[in-house]
């Protein structure tokens, strides 16, 4: 069993003024695939390095399988890791690099050979087994790092942006490949990325990080559908969630956006006469060239055909939002179109704290 319990982990690098991880607590169930997602510099690598034992926290604790490992040296933790910088040994052939962990554990030669062949096959490294890392491309080197990590029978698999250096197509292929591999391995996995589509597609659970803290932890679809705050909504999704300044009417029954009145969901009953932020995803806004009931007029600013859809930048009551229209929709900049917000997909945020509003 390798469930991970991280509690109140604080780390400040020597000489730094800000905390790299700020009181992070996280529970990971055995066999789960958890993705740490966040912008550059938010402390993802730091958290991963503390899990691996390469960095010691200032306070807090880490337990794996019920055993406290906070101060255990890295080689006693039975973890394996893909480094952000790959750290593929430059003086050794690919074959040796992949089998490194196994030969350190003095595994029999046939077993090493078998597993190296298996991993090389999975990651399409077969032709390069007898090359030195210097003779590989960056993406190939990164795959060597992944192969080296998956051949280990580790309790925990840590991966720091393992697909960052692959081209778009290869990344898409390896993403699903990796999902399958990890599922078969049944190893508890912590995966770091700043690519939100990768996070959503891979994770059993996604932890969105911001400035050393976990802003939201949850199922990928929940995180996408109901962001806990404005930051998460803005970080996840492409285009990011739209945030529209609005106010709740005095009786709590209507949402006022500029001169327009929309029907307010019951959640807003208790927020009468307050300013709120309306959060809505681009694909949850219906567009029409004709007016129908409950519609809001908007002026098209930019039309961007994306192939499977058309992305419109629309000005509504002085605010700019992104709207996703079906590919058959025809309009041009300057035209007036009518938008319908579906009540179920509207999310509301406090206009000051930017936190999601809850019924009260």
């Amino acid at each position, binding site marked *: 069993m390798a469930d991970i319990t991280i509690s109140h982990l604080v780390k400040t690098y020597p000489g730094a003024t800000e905390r790299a991880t700020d009181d992070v607590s996280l529970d990971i169930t055995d066999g789960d695939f958890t993705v740490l997602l966040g912008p550059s510099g938010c402390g993802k690598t730091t958290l991963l390095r503390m899990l691996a034992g390469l960095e010691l926290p200032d306070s807090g604790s880490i337990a794996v399988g019920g055993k406290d490992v906070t101060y255990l040296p*890295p080689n006693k933790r039975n973890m394996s890791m893909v480094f952000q910088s790959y*750290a593929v*040994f*430059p*003086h050794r052939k690919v074959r040796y690099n992949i089998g*490194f*962990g196994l030969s*350190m554990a003095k595994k029999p030669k046939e077993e090493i050979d078998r597993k190296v062949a298996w991993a090389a096959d999975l990651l399409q490294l077969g032709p390069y087994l007898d090359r*030195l890392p*210097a003779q590989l491309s960056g993406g190939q080197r990164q795959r060597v790092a992944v192969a080296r990590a998956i051949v280990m029978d580790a309790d925990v698999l840590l991966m720091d942006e393992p697909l960052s250096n692959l081209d778009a197509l290869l990344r898409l292929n390896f993403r699903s490949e990796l999902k399958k591999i990890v599922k078969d391995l049944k190893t508890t996995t912590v995966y770091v990325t700043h690519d939100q589509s990768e996070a959503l597609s891979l994770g059993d659970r996604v932890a969105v990080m911001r400035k050393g803290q976990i802003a939201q932890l949850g199922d990928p679809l929940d995180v996408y559908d109901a962001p806990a705050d404005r930051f998460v909504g803005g970080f996840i999704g492409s285009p990011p969630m739209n945030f529209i300044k609005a106010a709740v009417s005095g009786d709590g029954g209507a949402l006022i956006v500029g001169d327009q009145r929309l029907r307010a969901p019951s959640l807003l009953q208790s927020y009468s006469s307050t300013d709120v932020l309306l959060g809505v995803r681009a694909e949850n806004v219906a567009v029409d060239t004709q007016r129908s009931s409950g519609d809001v007029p908007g002026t098209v600013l930019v039309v961007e055909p994306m192939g499977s859809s058309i992305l419109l930048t629309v000005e509504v009551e002085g605010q700019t939002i992104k709207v996703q229209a079906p590919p058959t929709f025809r309009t041009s900049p300057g035209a007036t179109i009518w938008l319908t917000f579906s009540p179920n997909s509207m999310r509301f945020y406090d206009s000051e704290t930017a936190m999601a509003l809850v019924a009260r």
Partner: protein
Amino acid sequence: MTVDSPPAPVQLDTPARPRRIPPAVLLIAPSIVFMALLLGWPVIQGVLQAFRGDEGFTLDYITRMVEDPYFWPAVRNTLLLIAVMIPLQFVFAITMALLLRSNPRLNKVHFFVWAIPLALSDLAAGLVWLSIFNDRGYLNSVLTSLGLDSIPWLAYDNPATLFLCVLVAEVWRSTSLVLVIVVSGLQGIPKDYDEAAQVFGATFWQRLRHVTLPLLKPSLQVALILRTILAFQTFAVAQALTGQNFPLVVGETYRWYTALQNPNVAAALALVILVASMLISVFYLRALRDKGQEGTR
């Protein structure tokens, strides 16, 4: 990451340009002339001197050198010293460099202190150790104050302690050179490799053997060549401590030149050192060549 990537070839010359001396040659020309005058010429002179008698080519000086009763002991002592000292120095230097890398408190100070012998002249170092090892030196004072018998460390009939004294003094004096080279080599190795090895379960010794030492090989090679060549030239420390009692090849060169006033035999001895140094360098370069990396060079 890109330690081994060869530099991009710079193609300055276009076919249309008239041929002329490449700027690189012009730039290194002064130092080539300088080296030729100050090093090449004396070397040729020295070699000639070892073989040129009154009537042309002669092997007399070589014969005289080899038949001298001090010659073979000097060769033996020099080789013995090298064989014992070099491994010791590398063990010390690598240990010290690894200690420094683990970032102890005051690590800059430690490094500075350990590098001090580098700044000391070898004769001065010899004299310092003489004051320690001589019959009434510091070491014997300590022994007597502890109620032990004092030991004639530098007595001529005690070759074992003579060797020990020269060894200790030389190790103290010249290990810092290896240390400086190894430390700078270690600093050039990204920490990731060691960290990766740790995560994949390697123990300290496994990391040293499979990761650190192989990556340190270029530095070790430089240090090994330098130290071995310099060890052939060990002289002042032994001279100060033992005089004639522990002859070394360079000490013999000096004796033939000054005491015996025979520059020709001295030149023959110098030639022995030159040849030995060259052979040893070639040997190291071949022995330590990385077979795996040949393709990328």
